[in-house]
């Protein structure tokens, strides 16, 4: 990946945000100031740069409702058929000059160009990941400090380039805190049923130790079931083997309960062995309708003809053998045989032999078919029985002779459950009747086949009827089973209520609970394991919170706090009350663990720790703190840029602090080598900034007005000609002035020369020339055209002699106070001539 170290040179904006008509802004390599009253388009400049680099503005990125910002990037007065354009020219120390251009059409489509070539992303886009944005913005500061600690964490994570850690932490924590959202419905139901079972166990003092064992998770299961056995043996008053435990308890329970009511209203669930058996029976039944079976059956009739052929072949074989000795007489009837008849006998024998050949060696399949039909009937009976028994309890409970008993057991409070039972019966009855009818149809077809088999009158139609009846039976059975599955869960509640009512009346509640424990042992063991997994996620969340706390504390701890403190110290004044920011930390519990993603901003008042800087510091100090944080993080996690944009940093500060902040700007430019772009609505303060940064000699733009066209931007002088000449003279007259100061004095002279020349061009030629774009040739041409005396022109242009157009001094350059004094005199002369 190429290394990028971009400085901003030039920006063109048209049709974007507050900019309708095309506007351009040049940027100084060190410090550019843009001043304007509020709402004159300053922030549109910042947003244009955000949009170029990131594809969206931070205001939109952090907006609660993106809908409100839809279509807000384009200027409302800009023609819809033209794309809004932002063009930024960057100077890169390695890559040289390059142009990034973004076009935004009225439909919101964005096209990016680099040096005129369409690109899908910027070549430095990978470097944006993890980099702190180069924008210090008021709303970003508010988002960072004046928000709840958890949101502050996210702001810090973004600012420190830890967004990916924050994102994965969120994903994992969501999983750990709401795992139920990700588990199958069957498991959810099983967990709920188990909780309900635990509640019921807890109602029996003697069974409470079992609940305690379950609370231990899968390791407690053995202990729990030993206690179940012990309790059952005590209740039944005898020692029991584990294998006979369940049946013994069921017998005891049913014996007592049968005095009240012996049945249930549940659809009988299929146990795993029953499911295996049902599946095996289904295969056997379907074999009765399979093509090979039916084909074999259909061929039984044809089989009889084969048998007759075999007998004929045997007869012909004997006759042919006997004819060898008496070829002229029939060995069976004594008739005289002529040649023609002998040939006919020989020919018939060959034909019959060849027809019989393929069938020779095969036994009679009738016995096998009879056996298969018998298996089919038995399978059908078993299959039917298994299916019918599922709904047997429900139908029995709703029979006239039981109806009153069952209904009264439900009681008036559970009338709804009784209605569910009745509806279930009404639903299943037609399906059961259809099943029984289909079974009768299959039986009839089966009997027809058996009768035909006995009388050797099998034919295809019987086989077809059998196949169809079995297919019909199976499809009816599937519908019936499916309906039962639907009703099974629906009737669980009523069945449980009925069981409770019976147990309550019969005094068998505890026995039933033990039975449930034993019947559901496998599922309980699985539920405990699943519960252990889900419980374990809480522990995982704790580890994640601790780790993210460590990562964040490492990021915000000593280094960032120290860095923010050092910037904050530059803004502090001697008269400030000693109530200040004291550092960042992750909030911790009393036990010393990190609180989940909570960043604490500390503060101290005369050495005493305050609860939080956010609640304790004044708005101006919080604003200062936010600025320092943004600056510190921008320096800590740099992106592929050297510039830093400060958008209206001064808010609710007094004059003393405003002046202090100028030191921050100088440090950024001179010590951190940042290209600073400062936007402010405070013109008076901007004057102080340009004065305080006199020697930086940056560029100063002033937005002088705003119309439908957009802002009117004018480039203004960093310092007046008088200021520059005074500066140059004071340096030249200072005997202790170092070479670097003398070199700076020459630079002041050259800038003053350009400014004076631009004034002369305006006054004498009526031409607007920007002093910032003039070089020695331009100066000479303007002065000659303005009819300046040639000797003065030569001396003025000589002020450029010790530097080239790029302001680079030659290798043998030696600064000289005398030369500065001479240049100073020349410029005074030029001004005098210009004023004449």
């Amino acid at each position: 990946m190429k290394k990028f170290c971009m400085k901003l040179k030039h920006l063109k904006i048209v049709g974007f945000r507050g900019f309708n008509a095309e506007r351009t802004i040049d940027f100084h390599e060190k410090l550019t100031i843009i001043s304007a009253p509020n709402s004159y388009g300053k922030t549109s400049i910042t947003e244009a740069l955000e949009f170029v680099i990131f594809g969206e503005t931070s205001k939109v990125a952090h907006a609660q409702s993106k809908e409100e910002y839809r279509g807000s990037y384009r200027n409302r007065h800009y023609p819809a058929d033209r794309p809004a354009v932002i063009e930024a020219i960057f100077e890169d120390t390695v890559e040289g000059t390059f142009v990034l251009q973004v076009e935004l059409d009225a439909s919101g489509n964005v096209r990016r160009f680099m040096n005129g070539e369409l690109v899908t992303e910027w070549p430095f886009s990978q470097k944006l990941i993890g980099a702190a944005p180069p924008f210090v913005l008021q709303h970003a500061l508010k988002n960072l400090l004046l928000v709840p600690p958890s949101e502050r964490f996210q702001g810090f994570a973004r600012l420190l380039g830890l967004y990916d850690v924050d994102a994965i932490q969120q994903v994992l924590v969501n999983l750990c805190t709401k795992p139920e959202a990700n588990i199958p419905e069957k498991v959810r139901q099983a967990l709920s049923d188990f909780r309900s079972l635990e509640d019921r166990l807890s109602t029996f003092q003697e069974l409470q130790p079992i609940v305690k064992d379950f609370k231990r998770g899968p390791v407690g299961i053995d202990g729990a079931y030993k206690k179940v056995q012990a309790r059952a043996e005590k209740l039944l008053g005898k020692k029991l083997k584990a294998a006979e435990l369940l049946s013994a308890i069921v017998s005891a329970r049913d014996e007592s309960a049968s005095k009240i009511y012996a049945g249930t209203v549940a659809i009988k669930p299929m146990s795993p062995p029953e499911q295996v058996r049902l599946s095996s029976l289904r295969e056997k039944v379907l074999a009765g309708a399979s093509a090979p079976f039916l084909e074999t059956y259909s061929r039984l009739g044809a089989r009889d003809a084969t048998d007759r052929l075999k007998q004929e072949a045997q007869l012909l074989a004997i006759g042919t053998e006997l004819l060898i000795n008496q070829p002229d007489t029939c060995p069976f009837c004594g008739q005289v045989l002529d040649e023609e008849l002998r040939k006919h006998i020989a020919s018939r024998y060959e034909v019959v032999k060849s027809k019989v050949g393929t069938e020779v060696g095969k036994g009679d399949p009738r016995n096998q078919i009879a056996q298969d039909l018998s298996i089919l009937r038995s399978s059908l009976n078993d299959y039917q029985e298994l299916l019918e028994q599922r709904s047997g309890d429900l139908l029995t409970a709703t029979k006239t002779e039981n109806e009153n008993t069952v209904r009264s057991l439900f009681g008036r409070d559970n009338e709804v459950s009784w209605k569910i039972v009745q509806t279930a019966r009404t639903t299943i009855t037609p399906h059961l009747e259809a099943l029984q009818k289909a079974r009768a149809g299959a039986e009839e077809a089966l009997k027809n086949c058996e009768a035909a088999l006995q009388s050797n009158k099998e034919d295809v139609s019987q086989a077809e009827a059998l196949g169809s009846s079995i297919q019909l039976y199976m499809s009816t059975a599937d519908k019936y089973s499916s309906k039962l599955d639907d009703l099974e869960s629906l009737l669980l509640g009523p069945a449980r209520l009925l069981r409770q009512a019976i147990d309550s009346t019969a005094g068998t509640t505890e026995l039933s609970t033990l039975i449930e424990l034993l019947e559901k042992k496998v599922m309980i063991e699985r539920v405990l394991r699943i519960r252990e997994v889900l419980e374990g996620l809480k522990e995982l969340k704790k580890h994640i919170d601790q780790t993210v706390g460590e990562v964040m504390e490492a990021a915000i701890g000593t280094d960032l706090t120290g860095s923010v403190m050092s910037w904050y110290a530059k803004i502090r004044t001697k008269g400030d009350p000693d109530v200040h920011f004291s550092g960042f930390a992750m909030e911790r519990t009393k036990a010393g663990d990190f609180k989940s993603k909570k960043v604490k901003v500390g503060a101290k008042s005369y050495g005493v720790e305050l609860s939080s800087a956010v609640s304790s510091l004044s708005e101006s100090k919080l604003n200062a703190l936010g600025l320092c944080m943004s600056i510190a993080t921008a320096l800590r996690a740099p992106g592929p840029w050297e510039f830093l944009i400060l958008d209206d940093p001064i808010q609710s500060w007094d004059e003393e602090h405003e002046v202090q902040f100028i030191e921050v700007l100088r440090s950024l430019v001179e010590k951190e080598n940042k290209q600073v772009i400062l936007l402010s609505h405070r013109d008076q303060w901007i004057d102080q900034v340009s004065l305080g940064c006199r020697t930086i000699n940056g560029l100063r733009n002033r937005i002088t007005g705003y119309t439908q066209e957009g802002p009117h931007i004018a480039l203004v002088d960093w310092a007046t000609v008088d200021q520059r000449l005074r500066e140059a003279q004071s340096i030249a007259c200072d005997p202790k002035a170092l070479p670097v100061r003398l070199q700076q004095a020459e630079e002041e002279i050259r800038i003053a020369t350009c400014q004076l020349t631009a004034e002369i061009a305006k006054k004498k030629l009526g031409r607007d020339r920007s002093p910032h774009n003039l070089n020695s040739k331009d100066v000479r041409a303007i002065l000659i055209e303005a009819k300046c005396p040639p000797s003065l022109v030569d001396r003025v242009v000589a002020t450029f002699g010790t530097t080239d157009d790029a302001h680079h001094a030659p290798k043998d350059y030696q600064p000289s106070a005398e030369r500065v004094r001479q240049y100073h005199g020349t410029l005074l002369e030029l001004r005098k001539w210009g004023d004449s």
Partner: protein
Amino acid sequence: MSEDEKKLDHQNYGASSRVEEFLDAVGKKTNNKVHHRILRACRHRDPTTCVEEELKKVIEEILYET
């Protein structure tokens, strides 16, 4: 997610070194095999979907264990 999509996801997603370090640090704090499975899944697949899938898989393995 189809098998093809999973493959694509696997090819496209790679945890950053910072995320890898984070997952390592969490992993060192626990001996729980399920935790390690979930953390491992985050390394090669998009975590927004894979952590849920991995948990479902763990649960279904228990539920349908023969």
